[in-house]
């Protein structure tokens, strides 16, 4: 591409350098301001209202750098589901998580870690719950005895500092109930 290739003796033409310089400066300033901790997280997540935000999101440059920040998560979640079938029988199913597998398999569980412990249990993710419940229903579909209800149950435990009062028992809360329709099982 002619944007780069040049003999050392012949640098890029001035016009090309000027255009690239504007592009470079714009990207540096925009990505820095986008990711800087100068706004609340809620504001950062709001619907983009201007072209700069759209460009950054479109190009994948609008990433946050808030890793383990402002503080590492101190609460671990996992989710189970209770499936009720047409004949009244009940079954439980745990969303896969890294705690269920060995060291090697954990490499493959990064997506599940995010989904089952950091997304689905949280109240902000309520719009995702019907899809998650439908997925569980499809997974447990028996044509002769289909599931009628799926309940999602959140389990959590808080990490306590050593020496502090141990409050680290698992808690649980049923946070969503979904009535399964026949079209959900197709």
């Amino acid at each position: 591409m002619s944007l780069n290739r040049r003999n050392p003796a012949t640098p890029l033409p001035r016009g090309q350098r000027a255009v690239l310089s504007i592009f470079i400066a714009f990207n540096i300033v925009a990505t820095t301001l986008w990711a800087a901790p100068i706004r609340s997280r809620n504001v950062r997540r709001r619907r983009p209202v201007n072209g700069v935000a759209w460009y950054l999101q479109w190009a994948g440059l609008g990433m946050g750098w808030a890793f383990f920040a402002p503080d590492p998560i101190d609460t671990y979640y996992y989710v189970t589901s209770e499936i009720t079938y047409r004949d009244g029988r009940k079954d439980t199913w745990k969303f896969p998580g890294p705690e269920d597998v060995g060291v090697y398999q954990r490499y493959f569980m990064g997506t599940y870690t995010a989904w089952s412990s950091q997304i689905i249990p949280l109240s902000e993710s309520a719009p995702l719950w019907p899809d998650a419940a439908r997925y569980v229903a499809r997974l447990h579909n028996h044509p002769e005895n289909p599931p009628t209800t799926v309940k999602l149950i959140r389990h959590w435990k808080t990490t306590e500092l050593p020496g502090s009062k141990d409050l680290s028992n698992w808690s649980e809360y049923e946070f969503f109930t979904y009535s399964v329709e026949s079209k959900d099982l197709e």
Partner: protein
Amino acid sequence: MILRKLTSKWNRFFFEPQPPTAIALFRIFYGLLIIAQLFLLHPQWRTWFGPHAFMGLDTMNRFSTGPRINLFVLLPRTDFAINAFFWVFLFFAVCLTLGYMSRVSSVAVFLFLSSIIERNHFIANGGENIMRLAGFFLMFAPVGAAFSVDRLLRVSKGQEGIEVPAYAPWAQRMIQLEMSVGYVLTVLWKLTGRTWWNGTAVYYALHMSGFHRFPVPWADNLVAIKLATWLTLMIEFSAGILVWNRKLRYPVLAAAACMHLGIEYSMNIPLFEWVMISSFVTFVYPSDFPRFWNWVGHLLVPRSAFRTFVLHDDATAEVVNAARVLRVLDVFRLLHFVEVRSGDGLAYGLAGNSTTLENPLLVISSRGVYGGYLAILSASPLLPLLWPLSPFSLLLRRPRRAAPAVAIQR
């Protein structure tokens, strides 16, 4: 005056041509990481991206605002299409790693990676997002200019010489800048939290059940935890700022690499640490690569060892180009090239004697004399890009006749 100086420095930093070695190596690491990511996603591919995924495409679209790159919206919602997406993505990732159709592959990989992130951005981890960010600038970089099949093809056709052309490094600089700005920003974010100030953040990080990998002996020792917490902030800040100091660059990168390896050991955050470490190659000064190659070369073949010669008779264009390709492949400068009609050939008593060569291209090593494709195979252990072939070189039979090799080794 000041403005002119600043402009001059800016131009030198972003546009002064330099060898594309670093960005080409980064392309290889990047491609390998994309392949690794696909390998990790493969068992759950349809669970996340299929027509009956955990989260439907329509639900995701309701969450996504503004223009997004998501090729899934163009695909039929069938298992076949979703599986085909995977294999085409893998194909381009392999092409990018090898440097074949480099520009097209870099664009394709960016589009495919963006698509899987946008299909379900809730499951994308920091590693994927950083790969996407780097992938954006990689599209503009001369990724196929070195260590690539593209370059070998150009050299073999006589379109390019042995020396790699220099390029304006602005795209590589953008990757460097994004990384260093990222380190600074992550520190600033952390300083808005309580646990990074009181020194307990690493304790919580090491005790996050879902992220636990291998045991850390000092994980409950608060003194060690506080040291680790504050050291993390110092290293990250250094990786953002001090990395631009020439003397401190390598120690800072070494410290950051140790930190990332420590996280890789203790926490299960697939590929994130490797993405960060691989980006460090973009910070290596171009002048340091030849020194590094020499060092590796001497490790592979000590100075006292039998030298490997390549005799070539440049009577035909094919041989000229084949010898050029071998020179390009010879990253560690371990082969000694002798053109039989040149001064070198004369020095070895070969000039005008090319008819004695059984083949216009011979490789003479401690194992014997080989011609044609066997010559390239016999040299493969010394040529990094041909290392995948090197096990087959062990199958080579010793030739019965070794002349004129004996004369060469005087």
